[in-house]
Structure formats: structure tokens, C-alpha cells
């Protein structure tokens, strides 16, 4: 508590943006000079596995596990090094990427409190999921390729969070997009997987365009793209530039983090193998958008409008995702909706200013544990049920898969927000923050967030009843069995994380004090039990009760009932795809056809008719060349006559 006040006093002394920390960096020293190792380990794994070919088939998965673990080990060392030196951001210069005139983009690795949190999450949860994959992908022919791609993903993701400027961040940003594309389409022989991969890539491209333009704008407005340069100049650059930057970054974040209106790819992304869904589409990559927003907090501090925009997008998404999650029967798609919803909370937190950043990150870290745990649990069930994903074909699996059941159940309690599990600690401050920020509008955001809390508890309870409890509705040939230890141990580790992470981060303001140099300090101190938190807890209990009433008290039918219009809409992902198709895809196709028509008839028509004219005329004119020497003589004669006549005419 003393540390907190000291930091708060120190920050409050500095000028207008009292609570926003300004990033200053010092060259890396000691163990942090080796921070390139973080990238080198997984990159080495990816290169060896992807270039090594079939020769590495036999031991490839072991290398694929060893590299993330090595990176994690280094991450832990870096963390403790940083812990001793709390208010410095260490910058390790690797090489100069671009040098044009006064513009310079370096590949520097920025190890500070925020990036180290992500490094630990990415490598820690990543290692667990990759170890799990050894069991999950054991019988897959492309296992080596899978581990290669996973390592590639980790390298790109680490580059994203360790970059000290937006350009290098963008390289990592595109790198994770590539890895995501490759892994969603991992079972490329399935048409649906190939289509889903393409969809994810295309939708992400829309968001990436926002980030690209944001980088252009930074360059044109400030002449630099480094975090320190941009953050120092943004307060003097006026709120117009900051607002534009905020919204462009939000667009980028929407694409990568599957926020409305660019949410449609995430549900289809579940076509990938389940560990991919756990690592990329739940725990890490989809949170990159939140990282981007929180990292850019000095920009958002200047623009109230951008903050409100971010908060609204987050709120809409958290309801949107929750509604979808409550209606989907496919266990992975339901979890994907839940992921959208949770990231909506994080985005909402990022839109609250210093009030929310730290809780946004806390939720992100805790969510990394429990959502990865849920996905791995779902993967374990799918593995044991002959690749059946429809929850209406599950039921009464608790006895058949006890370890998965317990870990899944703990993650369930965590996400539903039941004290003392993770979700309770990390979600309530965000809900509470809504009511204090953004005036009357904040109340609307807060009420939506409260509804979201109830919705979360409801859809998770629904999932529990449909999967683990109730009567068995298995297929004839289903013989559910517990997964091998290589899969259960990572789930157990993640379950411990889901139980403890939230409390560990929030109690004694541990994360808050740790992150204070980067994201500032919340202006208002909250207790653990606030009014909003109490209401959220009541709503969560109500959600659980509703889940029990609808799926526990009455048996779950094997085929989905017709349902209310809302259910039908939610099953159709609230017509997100339809909207995209009718607003973007079809007009795009029409535009394409129109341009093709215009190109064929207009442009080509003009050029072709000119060519035809020249060709046709020449074809007729060549008839003059008769081969009769006397006709040539005659034409020469006339020519001479004309020349003479002209000469005379000029003379006279």
C-alpha cells in the first residue's frame, strides 16, 4: 500500500496527464541484453521443423515443446530481473531495420512491465498448450508441421509484444495473422477449414488496414513510429490527431481481437485444431488488440472520444459474444463466442482510461488461463468422443473424464465470476469502473456489462449441464475415455492458474503496482466488494439458476428445438455473416463484375478498336503494293509532280 501511494504521488506531480505514464526507456543491461533469445528459441524451432522436413518427424514435437519452455525459462529470469528495477523500461537494440533520411526504424526489443506480462502469458500458457498438443495431435500425419507453425506463432507473438515501435509491432502483428491463417487451415483437405482460414485472413486485413493507416499517420504527424517518440509528441499534437489515431488503432484491434464489427471470423476459426483455438484464438493472439490499445494509452489519454468509442465497441461485443455463446450447440463455437465476450470486457476496460487498463490486463492474463483451460478441456472431450463437437450429443461425461471434468469445472467457476476464483477479482473492477467513467453514458455501459456477467454465467452453466451433467445422449459408437497424462497435466496446471491468477494479481494491488510505470494508476481505489460487484455476483447466480432451470431441470433434447427468434438469430451469429455478405461481399462482387465489364468493353474496347482500325486500314492499304514496277513508277511520277508543283507554288 505504501508503494502505491508513493507511485501515485509521483505520478500526480507531473503535469496535466497526471495519471498517464510516459514511456521512457534505458538501454538494456544484464540478463535483459539477451532478450533476443525469447524470439530466437521459437523461431529456431519453427525454422528447423518447417525446413527440416520429414527427417524431423520423429523428434519434431519434442523440439517444438522444448523451445517454448526455454523461452519461458528466459522469460521468468527476465521477469525477476525487472522486478528488482521497477520503473525502468529496458530497450535492447538489435539492428536498424529502415533508415531513410531522418526516419529510422530500429528492431529493438522493449522489455518492460507490460511486455513481460505478455511474455510470461504467451510462453507459459503457450508451453502448456504445446505440451498438450503432443497428446492431442499424436495420430495426426502433419504433427511436425503443426509444431512448426505453433513455434512460428510464438515467435511472431513475442515480436509483437516486445517491439518498441509500431512498425516492428506490425511485423509481429502480420506474423501472428499468418500463423493463425496457417493453423486455422491446418486440416487443409477440409473445405470448411480452408474457407475459414481465408475468411480470417481477409477480415483481419480490414483491421490491419486501420493499423497501417495509423502508422502512416504517426509518421506524417510526428515523423517517428517509436513508442517513446509518438507518446512524447502526442499531447502536443492536438486531440484531432490523437482521436484519429485512437480510432484507427481501435479498427486494428477490432480485426485482431474479433470485436464488432469485425467479429465474424472468430467462430469460423474454430475449424482449426483445438490447441490452436486455445492458444491463438482464446489466450494470446486475439488479445493482441487489447495489448495494442493498452500499450497506446498515452494516445488514448489525449482523446476522450477514442476512449468512448473503444468502450462502446467493447460493450457491444461483450453482449454480442455472450448471446452467440448462449445459443451455439458446438462446444468450440460456444467457447469462441465466450472468448469474444471476454475480450469485449478487456476492450471495455481499455476504454476506461487509467481506471481500466490494469484490470483489462488482469482480465487478459486470468482469461488466458481459464479460457485456455476450457478449450483444452473441450479438446479433451472431443478427443474422447470421436471428434464429436455437438454438445447435444454429450451429457453425463463427468464420470467418464474425471480429470477433465474437474479442471473444466474450476475454469467454469472462474469465468462465471464466483468468488474466490479468478473471474470475480478481475471482471468486477471493470464493471465498477464503467459507473465512474464517461458520465451518464457510463451507466449504460455498466448496466450492459452487468447483463454480460449474468449472460456469462448462464451460457457456461448451459455448457456444464449439456456436457458434464444430465443424461447421456452419446452416439452409438461413442466410448468416452480420459485423455493421457500428457494432456491432463497441462489442464491441471491451467486450472490452478484459473483458480489463483485473479486473486494473486488483484489482492494487494500486485499487478497494479507492477504495471504502474507503463499504464498509470487508477485514480479511485476500489475494495474487493463493491456495489456493482455485488450486483454482478447476484446476476451471475441468477444466470446459473436460469441455466439450471433450462438445461438441468428439464432434459436436453438431442435435436435442437426451433427456439425463439432471438435463439435463431444467435445461432446464426446474430446475422453477422449475412450483414457482411449483403453490405460488403455482394456489393464487392457487383463492383468487380462492373469493373470487369468496364475493362472488357470500355478500356479494352477502346484499345482493341483502335488496333482493329489500324490493322484494317493497313490491310487495305497494302493492296497498293501490286508488284508492278510501272505502277510504282507512276506513283513516283505523281509524287515528283506534286513536289515540283509545291515548289513552284511556294516560289510564286
Amino acid at each position, binding site marked *: 500500500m505504501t508503494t502505491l501511494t508513493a507511485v501515485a504521488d509521483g505520478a500526480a506531480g507531473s503535469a496535466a496527464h497526471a495519471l498517464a505514464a510516459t514511456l521512457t526507456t534505458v538501454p538494456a543491461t544484464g540478463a535483459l541484453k539477451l532478450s533476443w533469445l525469447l524470439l530466437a528459441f521459437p523461431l529456431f524451432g519453427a525454422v528447423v521443423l518447417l525446413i527440416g522436413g520429414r527427417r524431423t518427424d520423429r523428434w519434431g514435437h519434442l523440439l517444438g515443446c522444448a523451445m517454448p519452455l526455454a523461452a519461458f525459462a528466459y522469460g521468468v529470469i527476465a521477469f525477476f530481473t525487472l522486478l528488482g528495477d521497477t520503473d525502468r523500461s529496458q530497450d535492447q537494440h538489435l539492428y536498424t531495420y529502415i533508415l531513410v533520411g531522418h526516419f529510422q526504424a530500429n528492431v529493438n526489443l522493449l522489455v518492460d512491465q507490460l511486455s513481460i506480462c505478455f511474455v510470461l502469458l504467451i510462453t507459459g500458457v503457450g508451453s502448456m498448450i504445446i505440451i498438450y498438443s503432443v497428446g492431442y495431435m499424436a495420430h495426426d500425419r502433419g504433427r511436425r508441421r503443426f509444431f512448426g507453425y505453433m513455434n512460428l506463432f510464438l515467435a511472431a507473438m513475442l515480436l509483437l509484444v516486445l517491439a518498441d515501435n509500431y512498425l516492428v509491432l506490425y511485423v509481429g502483428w502480420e506474423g501472428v495473422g499468418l500463423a493463425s491463417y496457417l493453423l486455422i487451415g491446418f486440416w487443409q483437405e477440409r473445405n470448411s477449414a480452408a474457407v475459414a482460414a481465408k475468411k480470417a485472413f481477409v477480415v483481419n486485413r480490414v483491421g490491419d488496414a486501420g493499423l497501417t493507416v495509423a502508422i502512416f499517420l504517426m509518421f506524417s504527424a510526428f515523423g517517428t513510429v517509436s513508442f517513446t517518440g509518438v507518446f512524447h509528441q502526442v499531447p502536443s499534437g492536438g486531440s484531432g490527431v490523437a482521436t484519429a489515431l485512437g480510432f484507427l488503432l481501435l479498427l486494428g484491434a477490432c480485426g485482431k481481437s474479433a470485436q464488432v464489427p469485425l467479429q465474424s471470423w472468430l467462430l469460423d476459426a474454430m475449424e482449426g485444431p483445438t490447441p490452436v483455438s486455445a492458444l491463438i484464438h482464446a489466450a494470446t493472439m486475439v488479445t493482441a488488440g487489447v495489448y495494442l490499445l493498452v500499450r497506446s494509452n498515452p494516445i488514448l489519454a489525449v482523446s476522450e472520444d477514442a476512449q468512448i468509442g473503444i468502450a462502446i465497441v467493447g460493450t457491444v461485443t461483450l453482449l454480442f459474444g455472450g448471446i452467440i455463446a448462449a445459443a451455439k450447440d458446438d462446444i468450440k463455437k460456444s467457447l469462441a463466442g465466450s472468448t469474444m465476450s471476454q475480450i469485449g470486457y478487456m476492450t471495455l476496460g481499455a476504454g476506461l482510461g487509467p481506471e481500466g487498463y490494469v484490470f483489462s490486463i488482469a482480465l487478459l492474463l486470468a482469461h488466458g488461463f481459464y479460457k485456455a483451460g476450457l478449450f483444452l478441456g473441450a479438446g479433451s472431450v472431443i478427443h474422447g468422443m470421436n471428434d464429436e463437437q455437438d454438445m447435444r450429443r454429450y451429457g453425463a461425461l463427468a464420470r467418464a473424464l474425471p480429470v477433465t471434468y474437474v479442471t473444466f469445472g474450476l475454469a467454469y467457476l472462474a469465468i462465471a465470476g464466483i468468488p474466490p476464483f479468478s473471474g470475480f477479482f478481475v471482471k468486477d473492477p471493470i464493471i465498477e469502473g464503467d459507473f465512474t467513467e464517461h458520465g451518464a453514458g457510463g451507466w449504460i455501459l455498466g448496466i450492459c456489462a452487468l447483463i454480460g456477467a449474468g449472460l456469462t454465467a448462464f451460457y457456461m452453466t448451459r455448457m456444464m449441464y449439456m456436457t458434464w451433467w444430465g443424461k447421456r445422449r452419446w452416439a452409438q459408437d461413442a466410448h468416452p475415455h480420459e485423455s493421457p497424462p500428457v494432456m491432463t497435466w497441462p489442464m491441471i496446471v491451467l486450472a490452478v492458474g484459473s483458480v489463483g491468477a485473479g486473486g494473486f494479481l488483484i489482492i494487494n494491488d500486485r499487478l497494479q503496482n507492477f504495471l504502474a510505470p507503463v499504464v498509470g494508476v487508477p485514480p479511485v481505489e476500489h475494495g474487493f466488494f463493491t456495489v456493482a460487484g455485488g450486483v454482478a455476483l447476484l446476476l451471475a447466480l441468477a444466470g446459473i439458476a436460469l441455466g439450471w432451470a433450462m438445461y438441468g431441470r428439464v432434459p436436453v433434447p438431442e435435436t435442437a428445438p426451433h427456439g425463439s427468434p432471438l435463439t435463431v438469430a444467435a445461432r446464426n451469429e446474430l446475422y453477422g455473416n449475412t450483414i457482411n455478405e449483403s453490405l460488403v461481399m455482394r456489393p464487392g462482387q457487383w463492383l468487380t463484375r462492373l469493373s470487369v465489364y468496364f475493362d472488357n468493353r470500355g478500356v479494352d474496347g477502346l484499345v482493341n478498336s483502335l488496333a482493329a482500325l489500324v490493322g484494317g486500314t493497313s490491310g487495305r492499304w497494302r493492296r497498293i503494293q*501490286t508488284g508492278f*514496277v510501272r505502277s510504282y*513508277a507512276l506513283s513516283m511520277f505523281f509524287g515528283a509532280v506534286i513536289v515540283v508543283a509545291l515548289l513552284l507554288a511556294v516560289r510564286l
Partner: protein
Amino acid sequence: MSPVHYVALAVILFVIGGVGVLVRRNAIVVFMCIELMLNACNLAFVAFARLHANLDGQVIAFFVMVVAAAEVVVGLAILMAIYRARRSASVDDANLLKY
């Protein structure tokens, strides 16, 4: 001196040559007509050279003769070749080089 007569003669010779080139088919005759035209020009050159007391015209007349001689050598050789191949000296029969 008056150049009228010389020029008139040159014009008459030139017209005869020109008409011959245009209407005759026999290549030998066409050649002779060309020579006629060249010599008509020579006559005009020499006449005007004399008139202006300037040697340029006479020099050019020599050049024309040299060119005419060279042309006849090459032309007659071609004519011989064509005649051997086609058994004809008509310019209308040698009409393969066309569209």
C-alpha cells in the same frame, strides 16, 4: 546566249523518256528511257552551266553519267538474271514482290 532552245530540247527528251518509262513493258526499253531522262537533265545542267559561266553544272553532269553507267551495269545484270529465269524481259512478268 539564250537557253530556251536547250531547255526546250531537254524538256522534250525528258517527256519522251518519262512516257516511255510509264507505258513500255520491255525492260530494256524502260532502261533506255531512263537514260534518256538522265541525259535530258544533263543537257539542262550543261546549258545552265554555260549560261552562268559556272562549272558546277558540268561537274554534276559527269556525276550523273557515272551514276547512269553504274546503274546500267547493275540493272542489266539483274535483267539478265530475270530473263534467264523467266524467259521474258517484260517488267509486268516480274511482279512477285508484292503484298
